[in-house]
Structure formats: structure tokens, C-alpha cells
């Protein structure tokens, strides 16, 4: 323990750093087990990706932004490609857009199941954690079947998708979805019925609707507090307006509501993937893999990533590189709510509450 922390120990009642295995420093001012105040420090994982992107051409930037985050590694190139396509006024083939959406929803599925498993681990329910991560492997198998990769899929190219989904693959993926749906329904019933999970998550880390609006939180975290925002519905992009799906909203705003939201969203994601696979249009998947000619211009693209709205502002000067890109990630908005949620909860719940925003610090610090 360094001297500074010791001084703080003397000056305040007691500070404890939350023991979460992520590069976030949450300093908790406690009285016994009760957290009286909290501060959150971020920025431990800065890699200068936005600056680096100004030195890369558009295809190279795709590979770069794919590595902003390991979990939502499809959302970043997806959004970036949308921005460039809009500046260059390219018409993306329908089939390419459908494949993009399939990948985006598969990513949402694997991200949500990953978080649900972690949440179970954080409340000490390791059996549930193991079971959820066990069937999450099926999602990873589908992702691997389609893209050939488990983490960085490399499915996006400016003007479409890089890999096609053929009929054989479609049949296989459909079969995998069948068994996956059984697991997800089972998981939903178990999570919502289990007594110890409810004991640990109900009325914990409550973020009321008013606070959620005031701080401006988004994504599943906001929808768990009754904030009905979802870019897929509010400002449909790509081909999201062609699918029939619900955006679940829960009013309670506690950790349990965040569990419920993610479970319900997983079910909706399967629905979207099924529709997309069934109605997969014929035609090309992209406009060729040559480096596109992009005129000077700017565009702000939005995409509903698993954690909330991700925004890419891209500015080009007519050359081969980006003049400036700016990445806005959902974790920044959700992390701001953490001190508010922590107040008057116990240390036992601190890790769970911080994790309940489904933080992604590699996105946040990029």
C-alpha cells in the first residue's frame, strides 16, 4: 500500500478499492460495509487508436478499429464502414447488409451470455457461470462456422461483407440455433426463478429513471432503468427496419433488471438471426475489395452495440487516410452512473454493481 492511500485512510473514514479484475479504479468511501461515496477513475488502458487511425488507409483502419475491443469486435468496423460508405455514397448490397446484421446479433448474443456468466460468478454462483459459458461455446462455434474466427471476425469490408453464408452453412447454423434456443430459454427460466440470484441482485445498485435520464445512460443499462432507447428501432440503419423484433424495457433499474434485460435481448437476437437467415437475399455480398475512393466529407454513424450505442465520427479530406476519427463508446456513458449506483450499497455488492454496466474498458480507453 502506498503512502498516498495511507493518508487517505487517515483522512477519510475508510477507502477500499473494489476488487474487480478490470482496469478501473473505484475508490469506495465506506462506513463498515456501507458505501457512503464513491469515485471512479478511468484511463488506464489508453492505446492511442484514434491518433493511429489518422495514419492508416480505410481498409487498414477496419483492421485497427476491430481491435478496439475484443468482445464487440464486429460493432466497431461495422460502424466505421457505415460512416465511410455514407461519405463515399456507396450502395451496400442487401446480402452484405444481412450478413453484417447476422454477425452483429451473434455478437450481441455472445456478449450478453458472457456478461450473464460473469455476473453469476461475481455473486459467487459458479455453477451457473460454468453452465452459461458452456452453451456460450455453441455461439462461438456458429461465429467460427461463419467467419472462421472466434474473436476478431474480419467480416467487414468497405461496401459489404468479406465472407458469404452459403446454403450448407445456413442449414448448419439453423440447427445450431435450435439447440442454442433451448439452452437460452432454459437459462432464462433458471436465472429468473433462482432464489439466491434474486436475493443478491434485487434492489441492489438501483438507478432510477430520473437519474438515468439526467446522467444520460444508454443501451441495455438504460433500458433496465426504463430508458427506451435503441438505435436499431429509433434510427434504423443497415437493414434493421426489415426485421420484426421487440426492444425489451424494464422499469426497476436494479441489477436484477439488468440481468432480465440481457436475457430478454438474447431471445430477441435469436429471432433476428432466424429472420435474416431465412430471408437472406440473393446477390453480391460486397462491391469488390479495392481501396475505395472517398471524397472529402464527414459523417457520424451510429450502431447499437451489445453495450449500447457506439458512435463513429469520421472526417476525410479526399486523401487515402482518415483526417480524424472519433470513437464514442457506450461504456463511457454507463460508467458515469457507477458512483450514483454504488451509494448506500454494501461492499459485497460493489464489484457486482460496477460489473452490472457490462463495462468494456478496452473500448472506453481505446
Amino acid at each position, binding site marked *: *500500500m502506498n503512502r498516498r492511500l495511507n493518508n487517505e*485512510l487517515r483522512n477519510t473514514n*475508510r*477507502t*477500499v478499492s473494489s*476488487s474487480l479484475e478490470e482496469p478501473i479504479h473505484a475508490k469506495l468511501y*465506506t462506513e*463498515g*460495509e456501507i458505501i457512503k461515496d464513491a469515485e471512479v477513475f478511468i484511463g488506464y488502458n489508453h492505446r492511442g487508436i484514434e491518433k493511429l487511425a489518422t495514419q492508416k488507409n480505410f481498409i487498414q483502419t477496419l483492421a485497427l478499429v476491430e481491435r478496439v475491443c475484443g468482445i464487440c469486435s464486429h460493432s466497431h468496423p461495422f460502424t466505421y464502414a457505415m460512416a465511410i460508405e455514407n461519405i463515399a455514397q456507396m450502395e451496400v448490397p442487401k446480402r452484405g447488409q444481412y450478413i453484417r446484421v447476422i454477425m452483429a446479433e451473434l455478437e450481441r448474443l455472445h456478449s450478453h451470455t458472457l456478461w450473464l456468466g460473469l455476473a*453469476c*460468478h*461475481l*455473486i*459467487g*454462483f*459458479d*455453477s*451457473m457461470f*460454468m*453452465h452459461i459459458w*458452456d452453451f456460450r461455446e455453441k455461439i462461438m462455434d456458429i461465429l467460427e462456422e461463419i467467419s472462421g474466427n472466434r474473436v476478431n471476425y474480419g467480416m467487414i469490408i468497405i461496401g459489404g461483407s468479406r465472407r458469404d453464408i452459403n446454403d450448407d452453412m445456413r442449414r448448419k447454423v439453423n440447427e445450431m440455433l435450435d439447440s442454442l434456443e433451448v439452452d437460452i430459454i432454459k437459462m432464462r427460466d433458471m436465472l429468473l426463478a*433462482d432464489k*439466491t*440470484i434474486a*436475493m*443478491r441482485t434485487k434492489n441492489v445498485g438501483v438507478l432510477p429513471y430520473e437519474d438515468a435520464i439526467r446522467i444520460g445512460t444508454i443501451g441495455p443499462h438504460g433500458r433496465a432503468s426504463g430508458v427506451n432507447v435503441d438505435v436499431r428501432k429509433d434510427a434504423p440503419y443497415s437493414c434493421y427496419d426489415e426485421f420484426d423484433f421487440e426492444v425489451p424495457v424494464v422499469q426497476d433499474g436494479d441489477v436484477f433488471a439488468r440481468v432480465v434485460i440481457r436475457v430478454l435481448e438474447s431471445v430477441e437476437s435469436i429471432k433476428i438471426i432466424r429472420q435474416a437467415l431465412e430471408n437472406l437475399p440473393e446477390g453480391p455480398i460486397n462491391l469488390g475489395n479495392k481501396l475505395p475512393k472517398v471524397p472529402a466529407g464527414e459523417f457520424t454513424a451510429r450502431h447499437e452495440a451489445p453495450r449500447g450505442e457506439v458512435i463513429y465520427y469520421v472526417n476525410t479530406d479526399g486523401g487515402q487516410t482518415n483526417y480524424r476519427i472519433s470513437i464514442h463508446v457506450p461504456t463511457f456513458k454507463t460508467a458515469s452512473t457507477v458512483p450514483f449506483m454504488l451509494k448506500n450499497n*454494501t*461492499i*459485497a*455488492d*460493489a*464489484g457486482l454493481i460496477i460489473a452490472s454496466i457490462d463495462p468494456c474498458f478496452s473500448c472506453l480507453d481505446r
Partner: protein
Amino acid sequence: MNNILQFLFYILIFPGFAFCVVAGLLIAGIDRKLVARMQKRIGPPILQPTYDFLKLLGKETIIPRHAARKVYLAAPVVGLLSLVTVSLFIPIFNFSIFDKPVADLIVIIYLLTIPGVALIIGGSASGSPYAGVGISREMVAILSYELPLVIVLLTIGRKVGMALDGNITFSLKAIVDYQAQYGPMIAQWSMIPAAIALLLVIPCKVGSLPFDIAEAEIEICEGPLVEYSGPPLGIFKLNHAIKMFIMTSLFVTLFLSGAGTNFVALNVLIQFALAVVVTFISISVLKAITARLRVEQTFKFYWTYPTALALLSLVLVWLGL
């Protein structure tokens, strides 16, 4: 001379130190394997806790600058010694180191608290804020489970005492003799609530899920153990393993004992096998199907369900059933 040698054997080999260590580490390994299988994992080898313990013995001991050095190093040893002492008192079927009935149940109640107290003292000596949270939780845990535990032991003492001289007995030997004569205590229906209460007390006593509040690794980085390293940490882990064996073995002695066989070694094996069964029911299964409770939830739980069950048994026994 012979007597001294015999007592040295009792203390160092059986049923004292060596036996405790072997049985404790084995039962800890079996528990980990069982939990792993229930969680769809392959799990570590049965001897993994032994390997861990041996590895920790060879590691460097780092003492924090703000720690109270002597207390910090003495705490795990005190815990271990008290556990070994408890083990001396627990009869294994017809084997007991005492010839006459003595009031050892009361001694056991006191001695079983000491490992928890050692954890509190060691944690507070380390000077870490995580340990500070951990020790306050451990104190609440002790407060929670002591009440039902004492009531259960009282119930058994009364049950056996009534059969002996119409009074109450605090001798484990008398309890075992009673069971050798009338069959296992669990067979009496009035004792079943008490048995369930004790089964519920065991996980908190050994600090396993859902009651591992004091050492919750995710929440407070193992609380009192956060600053410990090397052999002292190894001894704390050993304490944990031995406590698992002692508590389950105590349950076997109190509820599942009987006449046994004429061979001490066979009796020990039966006792160990039964202890594994009790571990499976009260520790492994519970660990696999629950999430960790908060400290106030633990307190509330223990002062309602197990206490009510134990009291029910006590009333039934007092009524002569």
C-alpha cells in the same frame, strides 16, 4: 513413560496432527472434485490441496510493513493447534482417548471458535482494509452460526442424558455409547431437525459457499487472508481443510455413530467415508447450487431456519420424544 509415549502418539499421529492433515487435505480434494463434476468441469486431482499446501510451504513469507509481526505469524498456528486439539476429543465409533465420560462437548464448542478468532486476529494484524471488512464479516458469521450449533449440541446432550440418568450429559463418549446401544441418533425422528440444522451450520463454519462471506474472493480479495503469503497462508488453507474434516466427522460422531467394528482402522475408514458423504450433502451440493449471500442475509438465515429447527428438536427432546 509408556503413558507419555501413548499421549504423544495421540497428539502427533492419531487422532491428532498427522491424521487431521491427511484426512483434511483428502476431504478438501474430494470436495473440489465433486463440485467440479457438478459444474461440468473435470476438476483438479484429488491431491491438489496437498500440492497447494506443499507449494505454499516453500514460498517466501512477506510481512506487510504495518503488520503486527508476532501476532500475524502466530494466528494461523493457533488456529491449527486448536483444530488438532478438537480432533483429539472426537471419538471414532468405540475409539476414544478418554476412558471415562468427561464434559468434552463444552470444550469443543470453545475450541471450534478459535480458528475463526485466529482468522480475525491474523486479519486485523495485517493492517489491510480488505481484511478489516473480512474480519467484521467473520465476527458476524460466528455470531450467526454459534447459536444453532450450541442448541444442537444441547439437544443431543439432553437426549443422551435422559437415557442415562434423566439429566443432561456433555460427554461425547456417552453420546457414542448411547448410539452403540440404541442405534444412530439420526434414526430418532425427533433428532432429524437438529441434524438438518447442524448440516446447515457446517458450510458457514468451514467458510464455504453460500456463506463464505469472510473470504469472498470476488468482493474483498479473500478478506483476512489478503496479505498472507507462504507458509502462514498454507497453514490457513490447511486449517480450512481440517475444519471441513472435523466438522463433518463431528456430525458423523453425533448423528451417524454406532457400535462399529472391532478394528480401529476399519472404523476410521467408515468414519471417513461417512464424513465424505456429509461433505457432499452439506458442502459440495450447497456450493454448487447457490450464490454467495450477503452478511446480513447470512445472519438472518441462521437466526431463523437452523435455529428454529434446532429449537424444535430441543423442545421435542425435552418433552421426552
